[in-house]
């Protein structure tokens, strides 16, 4: 079996998590405690990838990241590579379509940190950053693991957006889910079956992990 699609998928998932989770943590923390009236708009924006069809997302991503777009041209001159049809473009797309999966569990977890514990941290002399690092984040840990796992698995499984932004270029943008599609079209059912089983196994283990963790999280008594 050709392992490159799996490697590619794993690499995409790992990089997405590495870049997305810190970004999402900051965003989620701000959303959890901000009292700005426009907060609802930002929350809706974050939730958009959940409700938009992947094709719409892919279309807008192609439009804004493509070779003849402002961002695409700037990136090309900066790095020498194109965004679309490349791993880099997939990464940007993955970060965007995983936003709700990362931000929402984190936001719920941060909201669950009692306000008086945060205030106690301030009164104990901790700065906003130290409060975040030493108190809020450890207490939001289960949310962080959920966000990480969901983003990881969702990236592994994403199809529509990856196909539109990356094409199906073997060893570059042909992730596991697209490789399965490709194998089916090539009448290679055995290959498609093997890859599907692997993806199913990973996804299932991840969901089990998340459920176990969420139960443990609620047992974190005061």
């Amino acid at each position: 079996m050709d392992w490159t699609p799996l490697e590619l998928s794993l690499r995409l998932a790992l990089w997405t998590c590495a870049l997305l989770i810190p970004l999402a943590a900051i965003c989620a923390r701000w959303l959890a405690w901000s009292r700005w009236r426009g907060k609802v708009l930002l929350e809706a924006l974050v939730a958009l990838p959940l409700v938009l069809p992947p094709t719409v997302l892919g279309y807008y991503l192609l439009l804004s990241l493509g070779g003849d777009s402002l961002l695409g041209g700037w990136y090309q001159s900066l790095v020498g590579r194109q965004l679309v049809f490349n791993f880099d473009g997939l990464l940007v797309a993955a970060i965007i379509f995983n936003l709700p999966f990362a931000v929402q569990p984190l936001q719920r977890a941060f909201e669950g940190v009692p306000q008086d514990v945060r205030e106690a941290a301030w009164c104990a002399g901790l700065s906003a950053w130290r409060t975040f690092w030493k108190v809020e984040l450890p207490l939001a840990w289960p949310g962080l693991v959920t966000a990480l796992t969901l983003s990881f698995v969702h990236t592994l499984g994403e199809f529509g957006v990856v196909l539109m932004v990356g094409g199906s270029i073997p060893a570059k943008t042909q992730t596991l889910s697209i490789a399965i599609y490709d194998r089916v079209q090539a009448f290679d059912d055995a290959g498609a079956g093997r890859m599907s089983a692997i993806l199913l196994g990973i996804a299932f283990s991840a969901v089990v992990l998340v459920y176990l963790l969420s139960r443990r999280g609620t047992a974190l008594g005061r």
Partner: protein
Amino acid sequence: MADNRINGLEVRLQQHSPIPLAAEFHCARGEMLAIVGPSGSGKTTILRMLAGLARPTDGSIHSAGEPWLDTRTGVFCKPRQRRVGYVFQDYALFPHMSALGNLTLAMGHVPQGQRRQRALELLDMVNLSGLESLHPGQLSGGQRQRVAVARALARDPSVLLLDEPFAAVDQVTRRKLHLELAALRDRLLMPTLLVTHDLEEAAALADRICVIHHGETLQTSTPEVLFRHPHSALVARLMGMRNIFQAQVVEPADAGRGCRIHWQGRDLEVAERAGFAPGDPVSWTIPASKVLMHRRGRPSRGEHENPVSGIAGELTHLGDEILVNLWVDGDPKTWLSFFISHHVAERNDVRAGVELAVSLLADGIHLMAPEA
């Protein structure tokens, strides 16, 4: 004294909404001031403003001469800049850290190497040695409260703020914690503010009590003064006094003697020299301890001070004593409350419905402005 006052806490807070406030008080170094009032009177809000967790529309807070808040000059120090030790109502301990961890996290100002030692000393001071590696989830309510106090002290605070710190524990534990806090007092060199709705607690622990109602400071004095000389009927009611009545001044105070007031068809002698003119309406109050029951069945020997007779209404057994409500002249709408021991009740056959007479001691009657 003046020096202590300058080095203490000076507070003035004013606000219309969302919570109305008109509070003004001070607390000297080493003094414990209890802020007492009914629920919703703004006590916790005041404490939060002192800590920097809330901000009034107008006011100033100075600690040891340093301005923490001054709306006129726009000064506002954040909580971490203020060095306050705050004990929250539900303790707000860091659940993911041990007791030791809770304390060392508040010791940012102490060099790294000394933190553990100091934390252990503090835990020892609050009688928690040996429990330093336990997490809050594994501690009892009383133990958690002690950790919260120790954490507040770990900060080396310039002001100690306690928000109903005994509310969440049972009566027995509460008494124990009272004793411990009282024992800690001589180590507390900073102004300490204790918010509570429990008058007895305030009277037992605090040097002075500040009575708050709807965000307004009504009176700030020592417990004795508050009980004996409340400024108004409202304060008297908030202090839990039972005998509050309206009367009229008959004779004003004179040099050498107090005044006389007319109440319920009789004249009462008042030792206090209040500045009321004849005919002025007044409110008056008398502590239950200054109402003495006449022995029944014995002919009255000479004059008793301010005698009042009536029928015993309700009798309420409160532990060692009995609270008697005397219906003055048989009128159930006007009653005088006083305490007698079981022994006296038995000897005098005091039951509901029997005739009784009492004396109101002249030096116990306190006159106040009439109620609106």
